[in-house]
């Protein structure tokens, strides 16, 4: 469960998030849409505890793991070491836990993370987040820069974890089509403020959302 109330996050004089309120229920998978600079990554970092709220509250039950924007692996370390470090909080140092989940990672275990393809890196980032045995997973830009087939593969894993293990997921995406496909509910963020929220099916028909997020060249 994620419960954000009246959250304000500022960097100096610039306000990145302006009185934001949103909730993600336990076991729910919710999308957060918005253009570049809307404050999406600020929210992700605040939920992960990397940024302090200027005011307002952020609550979540259990452990939060973050798949950060741009994967953010340790390029000099092997895939196995990247995964092992993912277990820093949980004390889980043996990556075989995620090899069951994502068998492809076992094949990559000895490779240096920095030399992998974008899709493989995203999978490592995914596995690394799962190493902390999270109750809540925040995914910042799952599909960015990846081929549609790779994205679909990762999305399938995410959906499975959500439906089978009850993992709570906040999916931060620029690709609205993908988000609407995976989630039932979505929030739309612009310039740090919530513009609209609701059922994905309804939002997809909202002309503002449709023109901004579905009308462009985004696939």
């Amino acid at each position, binding site marked *: 469960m994620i419960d954000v109330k009246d959250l304000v996050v500022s960097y100096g004089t610039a306000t990145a998030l302006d009185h934001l309120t949103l909730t993600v229920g336990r076991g729910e998978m919710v999308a957060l849409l918005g253009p570049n600079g809307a404050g999406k990554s600020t929210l992700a970092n605040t939920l*992960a505890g*990397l940024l302090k709220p200027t005011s307002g509250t952020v609550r979540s039950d259990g452990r939060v793991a*973050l798949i*950060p924007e741009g994967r*953010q*692996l*340790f*390029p*000099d*370390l092997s895939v196995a*070491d990247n995964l*092992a*470090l*993912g277990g*820093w*909080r949980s004390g889980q*140092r043996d990556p075989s836990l995620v090899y069951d989940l994502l068998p492809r990672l076992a094949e990559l275990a000895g490779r240096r993370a920095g030399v992998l393809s974008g899709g493989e890196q995203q999978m490592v980032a995914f596995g*690394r987040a799962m190493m*902390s045995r999270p109750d809540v997973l925040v995914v910042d830009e799952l599909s960015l820069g990846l081929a549609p087939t790779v994205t679909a593969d990762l999305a399938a894993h995410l959906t499975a974890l959500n439906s089978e293990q009850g993992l709570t997921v906040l999916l931060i995406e620029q690709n609205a089509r993908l988000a609407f496909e995976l989630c039932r509910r979505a929030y739309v963020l612009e310039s740090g403020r919530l513009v609209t929220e609701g059922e994905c099916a309804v939002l997809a028909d909202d002309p503002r959302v449709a023109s901004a997020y579905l009308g462009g060249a985004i696939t």
Partner: protein
Amino acid sequence: MSAFLTYLLNGLAVGCAIALIASGLVAIHRVTGVVNFAQGTFAVVAGLCTSSLLGLGFPHGLSELAAVLAAAVAGLLTGLAAIGKRGTTPLSALIVTLGVGVLAYAVEIVLWGDQPRSAPGLAGSMIVAGARIQTQHLLVIGVTTATFVLLALFFGRTYLGKALTACASNPYAARVVGIDVRKMGLLAFALGGLLGGIAGVLVTPLRPISFDTDVTLIVNGFAAAVFGALTRPVVTLIGALLLGVAETMAAGYGYGSHQLEVALGLMLVVMIVQAGRRSVISLEST
């Protein structure tokens, strides 16, 4: 020829001491981005401690160990000053470590006076392949080799060592997985203190050490670290050995008075060449 071999081995011993200091600099810089100006101070602290402890009648081994630990504590304290406060930029931290080094002068003079001190090491000398070499030089080479092997194992095989590498590799990602980057930085400072301390303990029997020996030590260490762009331990090691041998050869063949200029000149050339290469790269990427 045997003179050459003697100089070579002596030079390697000098280079080993430089390598220990330089690797401390690299360890701290990799994890925190800070160049620790007080790195030479750790060696001085350890050297002076050994001389005192041995003077008080404590046995060899124990004295050296305690001195190295004292240097590690000095490293930790330096780290607290340099990165303990949130939002200290690396350049501000450099100035703070400069301050720590000067503060150490005051403390060292009160405790040990301002005259150079020495400590007995391994006495005697051996003939190696026809060249006479002091036993202490061999000890320096042996201990340094062992230290570097342990360092490699620590960073390559242990979870904590990998976490340190992770902080160096991607500090943001380290925070994402929950590693306290500042604590790791302090650990790196303590490790830097430890390495500097080992250098000090090894060197004190060879050349007396006084409170202001740190300038020569840090400048040599920085020169070696610059070879590896302050981030690459192996290149740093090679740079340190080269530097040690070059300086000892220069001294051995009668250019002793220009030893420091050789080291410093070399450092400047390497830095400027590296800077030139960097700016070419940054031009290409834009």
